[in-house]
């Protein structure tokens, strides 16, 4: 076996900091020479436990080669002490022992050893074990750094995603200017997701509201959510629900890949005339609680999801929108999150909640989320969840 060429293939192994600990000066010189001869250069030595601890803490090694039998602090004790140090938790500790007693080997592993080598030292075995463990350590470190970087990037992406949702300031303005009370909950099933909701001012007495669910989950869906959001905020004609969805659809057909699409409910409230005009493209039908008759109406409105077929047209429907009326928009995760027996929230139960809470947004939202929690338990969501409650203030 050509150990040298094996080692040379992974250059980072050469950079490893190695600490050899042995009470024999001769043994240390021998070990150091072997390592240097095979390309390692960052080697320290220690003749006892105390010196080893000092050197390991000052300059944490990647690998400690440790003699088990030493006067004073033996290899077991030293191994335990080193392993407890936060900077050495992932350090490779190779124990050298003349003993073939299995209880010694077990005790070594219990003390935190990564592996053991029997004495007299077999040079090839020592180098191979050193290389294998160091490669694994470096790979694990690399994965850890990658995960940390990715985690930070996803955290930043999540902040950006939260920023496309209506701000508290906007909700206060909408409450003041349009007498519209809004409560909402957004929860992606992974770090980022493909759901979002929004409000767009159209005129002094017209305001649009929407809830969007992009197909798929995770980063891909989140990137498409940004695309759709930009279009939703910028395209002209936002006051007419059906034609606006048709325009949005044609824009999305050009940018979305086959199999990707967006479902949306889009409504325009005319506060002067007390009307809600709405269209839908594949979105789960929302519910409207009417204060006047204290009934809940399902706003059935079908439509091909956005981004699938160029030239799709959409139906537009209208319903009265009066003081005290409440509109509940939600993505399908709300009615697809089931308990272990397969029971889920359904439109009937959502309607009952709206009636029981008389459409008051905070109470409705709290009640629905509590009910969802009872189905979901400790399980993560299987899909992104958005829940919005809009109420025409009395």
């Amino acid at each position, binding site marked *: 076996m050509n150990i040298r060429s094996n080692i040379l293939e992974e250059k980072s192994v050469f950079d490893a900091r190695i600490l050899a600990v042995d009470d024999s000066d001769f043994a240390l010189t021998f070990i150091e020479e072997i390592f240097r001869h095979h390309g390692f250069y960052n080697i320290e030595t220690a003749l006892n436990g105390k010196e080893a601890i000092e050197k390991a803490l000052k300059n944490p090694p990647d690998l400690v080669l440790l003699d088990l039998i030493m006067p004073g602090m033996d290899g077991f004790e030293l191994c335990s002490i080193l392993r407890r140090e936060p900077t050495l938790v992932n350090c490779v500790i190779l124990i050298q022992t003349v003993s073939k007693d299995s209880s010694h080997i077990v005790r070594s592993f219990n003390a935190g050893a990564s592996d053991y080598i029997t004495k007299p030292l077999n040079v090839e075995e020592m180098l191979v074990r050193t290389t294998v463990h160091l490669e694994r350590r470096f790979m694990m470190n690399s994965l850890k750094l990658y995960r940390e970087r990715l985690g930070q990037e996803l955290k930043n992406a999540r902040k950006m995603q939260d920023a496309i949702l209506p701000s508290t300031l906007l909700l206060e303005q909408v409450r003041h200017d349009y007498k519209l009370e809004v409560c909402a909950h957004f929860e992606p099933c992974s770090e980022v997701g493909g759901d979002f909701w929004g409000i767009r001012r159209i005129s002094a007495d017209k305001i649009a509201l929407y809830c969007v*669910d992009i*197909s*798929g*989950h995770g980063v891909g869906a989140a990137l498409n959510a940004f695309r759709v959001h930009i279009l939703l905020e910028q395209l002209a004609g936002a006051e007419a629900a059906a034609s606006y969805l048709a325009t949005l659809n044609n824009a999305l057909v050009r940018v979305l890949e*086959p*199999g*990707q*699409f967006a*479902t949306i409910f889009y409504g325009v409230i005319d506060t002067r005339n007390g009307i809600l005009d709405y269209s*839908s493209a*594949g*979105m*789960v*039908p929302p519910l409207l609680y009417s204060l006047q008759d204290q009934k809940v109406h399902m706003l059935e409105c*079908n*439509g*091909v*999801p956005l981004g*699938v*077929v160029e030239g*799709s047209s959409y139906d537009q429907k209208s319903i009265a929108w009066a003081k005290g009326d409440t509109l509940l928009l939600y993505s*399908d995760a709300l009615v*697809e999150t089931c308990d272990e027996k397969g029971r889920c929230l359904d439109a009937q139960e959502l309607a009952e909640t709206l009636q029981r809470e008389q459409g008051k947004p905070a109470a409705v939202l709290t009640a629905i989320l509590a009910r969802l929690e009872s189905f979901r338990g400790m399980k993560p969501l*299987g*899909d992104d969840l958005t829940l919005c409650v809009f109420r025409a203030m009395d």
Partner: protein
Amino acid sequence: MEYRQDIAGGNHTITMTGRFTFADHGSFKKIVDTVRAGQMEALTFNMQGVEFIDSAALGMLLIVREEAQKHKFLVALSGAQGQVDKMFRVSKFETLFTLRQA
């Protein structure tokens, strides 16, 4: 989701059972590969045994539709019921596929 593929001349039928979701992306790719290979005259998804479909799975069916258009053959969805039928109706799938009852 589990599926079985039956071939009778140029007519392919894929019979699916269980929950058809995002998690089936890998196995569905094999179906898409078969479609891309062409040599079909018609493809029917028998969905009578599918109890649940999510939006990601709808996307997979749309990919098949796209491929079918390239290869000029029809895709039919048959036997959808319950939640699956509701999803097809909400998304107006009758305008995109041939929908058949069981």
